[in-house]
C-alpha cells in the first residue's frame, strides 16, 4: 500500500510533457530567487518546479492552457514594469522578474477567489469533492472570512445526468473549461460544451444527446470542484477515508497507471495516475469503472463443486484436493500431455510465472497459453522488434495501424495516437476492413475486404502478385500511402492487432510478416486485448525450459538481427482463402515453432516431489 499516491492532477505539474522546443536554459527571478527554466516553459510550471506554488483552476499540465479562471495571475516584469499576467499562459523569458506574493498579486488573487465563490453553493459537506477540492483548499488557505455578496446566488436544477456515468451540478461549476477542453482536445468527443453567455454560461450537452464518451470519467477526475461526479462513487466516501494503492489497470493491455482507492475493504474508485510512458493521467471508462466487478454480486466468492446438475459450495481445502486428484489421475491415465493450462492474462508477471511453473515444472505439460482465441501467436508477439507507446507516438513519425480498432480495444492508446496525430504531426496510415475510431485522424485509410489484410499489406509493400486487386484497397489511396511511407522520416512504427475475432489470427500474422520483411527497421506494437498478455506470454511461453528462462531453441524474444530479413512471402493466395499457419513459421523468428496447440507439443513429465499426491 502506498499512501502517498499522486492522483490529483494538480500535484503533477512537474510531470508535464517536455516542451518540444529545444532546451535553451534561461534565467528568471521568482520571488527574489534566480531560477532556471526551459525556453517555452510556462511560468506556472517553472515556478512549481522550483517549489513556488501558484494557485490555479483552469490550468492542467496535460492540456493547452486557456487562461480563463485568472487565479494564477501574478506580477511579472519583463522590462516594462510589473504587470499582472496569467502564469499559465506566459512562457518564461530571460530576465523576467516574477512576484507571486506581492500585494498586488495577493489582492488580485483574493479578488478572483471571491468572484468564484459568490455564486458557488458552498455545499462542501455534501459534495464528493470536499476534502480534495482545489477551490475548498484555496478558500481555506487564502479566502475571505465572510461573504460581501448579499444577493441571491445562481440557482440551477441539482445534478443533471450528462451520461450514464457522470452527473453535473451546474451550480458548483466554476467554468474552468477543463472538462470541455478534455472532451474536445483530448478525447475528441465534444459532446459537452459551454452554452449561453456571460453569467448564464454553463456546461451542458445537446438535448437528448448524452456525453457518451469512452473517456467521460476523466472529466470527473480533473474537475477542480465537485461539479462533475461519477455515479458509482457519488456519496460513497470522503477522500480522507480512502486508502490508496498504486497499481495497473488490467482491463486491457495498455496498462494504465491507476490508484486503487478503497474504504472499509471495498474498492470505491480508480483514479488515473500521470505517468509519461503510458496514460498521462487518463483512464478509459471501461478501466475506470470496471472495478465494480470486484464487488459484483455475480462474482464467485467461494469454490463450487459440481454435484449432478448442481454446483455446491465447498471448502477451499476440499476443492483444492478434488482438483489435485483430477489432475493426478489424468496424468496417470493419459500422461501429462493430456493436460493444458490456460493462464490468466490479467495476472501479474509473478503470478503468471507461478502457474507456468505449476504447468511445466509440476504437471509436466507444455500445453500452456494465456490467450483465448482473441490474441495473436506468441511467437509473433514476442518475436517482433518491439516499440513502446512513446516510440510509436514520437513526434513527426509515421505509423501504420493494421487491424484493430484501437479506440474500441485499447482506449488510452487511442488517446495517445490521437494526440500524436493531432498535435505532434504523426502520420497514421490505417489498413483496416472498416473505418475505425482513428480514421478521422488518419492521413490515409486503406480499406480492404475482410480477410484480405495480407493482400493489402503486400500491395502496400509493392509485392502483390500481378493478378492481385490489392485486397480491394483503392489504388490511389495505396499509391498515396506508399509515397507517404517513402517520405517517412525515421523508422516506421506499426501497431498491429486483429480486426475481427471472427476470422483467424493467421491473416494478421501473415500481413505482419509482410510488413516486417519489407519495412526497414520497422518496430511493432502488438495491440493485444487482455491486461497482461504480454507478461504472461513472457513468463509461460518458452517451451522445454523453465518458465521465464531463456529458450533453448531460437524462439521467444529473438528478433531478427539487423540485415537479417524474412524470406519474401510465397506467392499470393486467392483472396479469402485460409492460409496455413506454416506461413508464419516460415519467418526466422519463429522458424521451428508450430503454433502452440494442445495436440502438437510433446514434453516429458518431470518426476519430482512436487507431483500432486493422491489422497
Amino acid at each position, binding site marked *: 500500500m502506498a499512501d502517498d499516491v499522486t492522483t490529483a492532477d494538480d500535484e503533477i505539474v512537474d510531470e508535464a510533457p517536455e516542451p518540444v522546443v529545444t532546451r535553451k536554459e534561461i534565467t528568471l527571478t521568482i520571488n527574489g530567487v534566480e531560477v532556471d527554466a526551459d525556453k517555452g516553459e510556462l511560468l506556472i510550471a517553472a515556478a512549481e518546479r522550483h517549489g513556488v506554488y501558484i494557485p490555479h483552476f483552469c490550468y492542467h499540465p496535460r492540456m493547452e492552457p486557456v487562461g480563463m479562471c485568472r*487565479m494564477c495571475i501574478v506580477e511579472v516584469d519583463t522590462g516594462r514594469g510589473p504587470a499582472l499576467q496569467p502564469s499559465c499562459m506566459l512562457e518564461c523569458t530571460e530576465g523576467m522578474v516574477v512576484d507571486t506574493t506581492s500585494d498586488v498579486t495577493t489582492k488580485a488573487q483574493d*479578488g478572483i477567489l471571491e468572484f468564484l465563490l459568490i455564486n*458557488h453553493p458552498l455545499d462542501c459537506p455534501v459534495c464528493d469533492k470536499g476534502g480534495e477540492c482545489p477551490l475548498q483548499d484555496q478558500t481555506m488557505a487564502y479566502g475571505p472570512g465572510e461573504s460581501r455578496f448579499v444577493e441571491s446566488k445562481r440557482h440551477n436544477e441539482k445534478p443533471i445526468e450528462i451520461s450514464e456515468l457522470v452527473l453535473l451540478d451546474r451550480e458548483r461549476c466554476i467554468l474552468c473549461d477543463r472538462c470541455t477542453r478534455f472532451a474536445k482536445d483530448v478525447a475528441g468527443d465534444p459532446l459537452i460544451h459551454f452554452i449561453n453567455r456571460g453569467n448564464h454560461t454553463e456546461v451542458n450537452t445537446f438535448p437528448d444527446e448524452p456525453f457518451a464518451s469512452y473517456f467521460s470519467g476523466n472529466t470527473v477526475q480533473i474537475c477542480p470542484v465537485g461539479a462533475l461526479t461519477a455515479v458509482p462513487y457519488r456519496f460513497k466516501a470522503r477522500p480522507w477515508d480512502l486508502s490508496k494503492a498504486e497499481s495497473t489497470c488490467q482491463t486491457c493491455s495498455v496498462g494504465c497507471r491507476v490508484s486503487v482507492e478503497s474504504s472499509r475493504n471495498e474498492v470505491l474508485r480508480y483514479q488515473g495516475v500521470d505517468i509519461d510512458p503510458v496514460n498521462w493521467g487518463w483512464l478509459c471508462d471501461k478501466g475506470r469503472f470496471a472495478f465494480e466487478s470486484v464487488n459484483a454480486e455475480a462474482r464467485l466468492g467461494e469454490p463450487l463443486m459440481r454435484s449432478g446438475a448442481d454446483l455446491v459450495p465447498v471448502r477451499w481445502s476440499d476443492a483444492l484436493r478434488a482438483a489435485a486428484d483430477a489432475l493426478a489421475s489424468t496424468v496417470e491415465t493419459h500422461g501429462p500431455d493430456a493436460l493444458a493450462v490456460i493462464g490468466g492474462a490479467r495476472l501479474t508477471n509473478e503470478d503468471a510465472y507461478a502457474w507456468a511453473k505449476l504447468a511445466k515444472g509440476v504437471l509436466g505439460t507444455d500445453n500452456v497459453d494465456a490467450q483465448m482465441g482473441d490474441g495473436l501467436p506468441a511467437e509473433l508477439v514476442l518475436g517482433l522488434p518491439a516499440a513502446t507507446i512513446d516510440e510509436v507516438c514520437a513526434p513527426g513519425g509515421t505509423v501504420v495501424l493494421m487491424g484493430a480498432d484501437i479506440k474500441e480495444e485499447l482506449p488510452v492508446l487511442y488517446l495517445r495516437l490521437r494526440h500524436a496525430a493531432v498535435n505532434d504531426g504523426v502520420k497514421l496510415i490505417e489498413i483496416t476492413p472498416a473505418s475505425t475510431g482513428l480514421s478521422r485522424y488518419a492521413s490515409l485509410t486503406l480499406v480492404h475486404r475482410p480477410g484480405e489484410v495480407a493482400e493489402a499489406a503486400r500491395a502496400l509493400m509493392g509485392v502483390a502478385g500481378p493478378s492481385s486487386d490489392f485486397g480491394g484497397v483503392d489504388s490511389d489511396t495505396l499509391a498515396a500511402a506508399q509515397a507517404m511511407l517513402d517520405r517517412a522520416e525515421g523508422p516506421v512504427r506499426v501497431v498491429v492487432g486483429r480486426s475481427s475475432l471472427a476470422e483467424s489470427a493467421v491473416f494478421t500474422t501473415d500481413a505482419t510478416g509482410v510488413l516486417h520483411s519489407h519495412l526497414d527497421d520497422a518496430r511493432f506494437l502488438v495491440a493485444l486485448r487482455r491486461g497482461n498478455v504480454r507478461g504472461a506470454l513472457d513468463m509461460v511461453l518458452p517451451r522445454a525450459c523453465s518458465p521465464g528462462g531463456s529458450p533453448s531453441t531460437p524462439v521467444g524474444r529473438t528478433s531478427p538481427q539487423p540485415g537479417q530479413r524474412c524470406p519474401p512471402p510465397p506467392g499470393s493466395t486467392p483472396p479469402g482463402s485460409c492460409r496455413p499457419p506454416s506461413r508464419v513459421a516460415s519467418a526466422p523468428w519463429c522458424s521451428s515453432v508450430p503454433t502452440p496447440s494442445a495436440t502438437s507439443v510433446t514434453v516429458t513429465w518431470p518426476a519430482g516431489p512436487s507431483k500432486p499426491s493422491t489422497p
Partner: protein
Amino acid sequence: MARLTPENEALAGRIIARYPRPKSALIPLLHLAQEQDGYVSDDAMTHLAELVGITPAEVLGTCSFYEMFKREPVGKFLVNICTNISCVLLGADDLLAHAEQRLGVTAGETTADGTFTLEGVECIAACTEAPCLQVNYRYRCSVTADSFDGLIDDLASGQLDGEIPPHGTVARIRQVIPARSRRRRRLARARCCTSVDGHRQRRQWRHLMAVSDAAPIITARFGDPEAHTLDRYRQTGGYEGLRKALSMTPAAVAAEVKDASLLGRGGAGFPAGVKWGFCPEGVWPRYLVVNGDESEPGTYKDRMLMERDPHQLIEGVLIAAYAVGCAQAFLYVRGEMALAQERIAAALNEAYAAGLVGRNIMGTDFSVDVVLHWGAGAYIVGEETALIESLEGERGMPRLKPPFFPAAKGLYMQPTIVNNVETLSNVPWIITNGSAAYTALGAEGSRGTRMFAVSGHVKRPGVYEVEFGTTTFRDIIFAPVYGGGISGDRQLKAFIPGGASAPWFFEEHLDLPLEKTAVDKAGSMLGSGAIVVMDETTDVVRACLSLVRFFSHESCGKCTPCREGTTWLERILSRIMAGQGRASDVDLLMDISDNISPGIAWPPKQTTICPLGPSAVSPIASAVRRFPEEFAALIDAAVAARTSTPVSITVGSHG
C-alpha cells in the same frame, strides 16, 4: 421543427464553400435555419452539425452565445427597443413601459396571438436618433408613444409586410460569389475611368453632417441617396484609389498609408499602416477581416458608412488586401444591421460582376475574394480576437494577447489584419490624394478627419465628420453646426467622450481638442467616436446602471472577474436603485472595480482577458468619484427607511 429543406441545404452548401473551413459558415447557417423556421430548432442544429462536420453540442455552443438566435418560436414581429444610454437619456424607459402596456406583455414575452415579441435590447447603433427600436432588425428612430402605436397598428394590419419580412429573415439580398470558372478575367479598362473631378466638390449631407474647415473625406457621398450604387460611386471618383494602388507596389501602398498616420477608428486608435507591417515575413495565407460589428453604446458611424457608401469601404478593403497581400477578406457586419448587410451584398455583387473583386482585378494579376459575413448579436465580437473566433464559427470569446495577436496568429492561426470599417473607408482617399494631403489635416498624433456621433441631451444630435485637433468638445457639443448646445439650455453634467467604455468627462474637459493624445492624457479616450451628453437632470446612478448592465450582459463569460464581477456590480447598482442600498455599497462597488481593474486608473490595468471587464469600471469610477452624493442620497434614504420600518431584503447564502 425541421431540418433544412433541400433548397436550403443546397444554399448551405454554397455558403460553406465560401470559407476556408466549414465551421466558419456556422453563424450564417444558423441564420438560414432561423429564416426557414422563425427560430433555430434542435433538428436544424443537428442537421447543421452534419453539414459542417461537428457535433450538435458544438452547434448549440455557438448558437446559444448569440442574442439573435432564438431557440423557441417568437412572434412574427420581434420588437427590440434600445434601453442603452443614449436612448435612456431620451426616454427609452418610458417608451418600453408604454410598449409593454400597449402590447400587454412584459419585455421578453410574446403576445397571445403570436404577432409580437417585445424585447429591451442594448445599443443598436442609432444613438443620435434616440429613442429607437428595431422591428425584425428594421429601424424606427426618434420613436414616441404615438408613433409606436401607429407602428404597431401598421404592423398588425399587414401594411408593412412589404418592408419588414417575418422574423428570421435579416438581409434579403445575399452575396453571390460567381463560380470561379465564370469569373470575368479581364476588365475593359475604359469602363472604370469615368470620374468626376475629385472629392472636394461633392454635396454635403447637411442634415446629418457638417464639416469644419476641411471638406469631408469619408462622408462626402452621404448626401446622395444613390451613392451606394456602383454607377454613382464610380461617377464620383470611386475605385480610382484602387486603380492607383494597383499601379504601385504593395509596399508603396502600405508606406503611403503608414505615412498618412491613419489611426484605427475601432477604439484603440492604433496606426493602421504600422499594423499592416506586423504580419510575419513569408507566412501565407494572410487574411483581412473588416470589423463592422459596431455596438459600443453611443457609437453610430460604421453602420452609416456601410449603408450609405459600401463601395468606398470595399475599395478600402481591396487596397488594404493588396498592400498586405491577403488572398481573402471577410467583411464582418453586425448581425442586427439588415440594411447594411443588404447594401454590402448588393455592392459586392456589383463589384464582382464588374471585375473589381475576385480574379484579376482591373485586369491585373491581383486577385482577392471578399466575403460578406455577419454576426448574430454579441457586442464582445467587436473585440478583434473574439471577432476572429466568431468568424471561425465559435463562441465569440476573446483570445489572450499575447500570444494571439491577430497579425501573427489570427484567423485559423494565420496572419490576419483586423481593421475597423471607418479606418478602411479612409484608405481610398489617402491613396487617391496622397498621404501629404491627409496629414495636412488634423493635429500632431491624430491626422485626417473623424466621425463623431453626438447623442444624448443635445439639441442637434447627429454624426459629424470633423477634422482632428481643430475642433474641441465644446465646439462639437455647443456649436450650432454640431450639437447646438444642451437640450432646453440646461447645464452640462457630464459627457462620455468615446463610447461606453470611456471614463466620463465634465465641464472642465470641454476645451480639450478632439485629438487622441490630448484626450488620452486627460484620462479617457476618443475610443469609438461616441460623445454622449448628460445634462444636469441626469440620474447618474441610473445612467451608470444602464452602462454597467450593458457590460455585464455582454460579458462573454470566459474569465472570472468579468463574468462574476460585472454582474455583481450590476446587481448592487440595481439594489441601490431599488431602494435597498447598504451603507457599505459604494466602497464595495469600488473594491469590486479594483479587483477587475487594479488601481482603477487610466489606461486601465486588468485582471481580465480583454478590456471589456475594465470597461464596466469606467462609468462606476467616474460617477462615484464625481457624484458621490447621488449614491449617498439613495443609500441613506434606503438605510433610513429600513431602520424606521423593517424591510426584508434578499440575502443570499453566505460563504
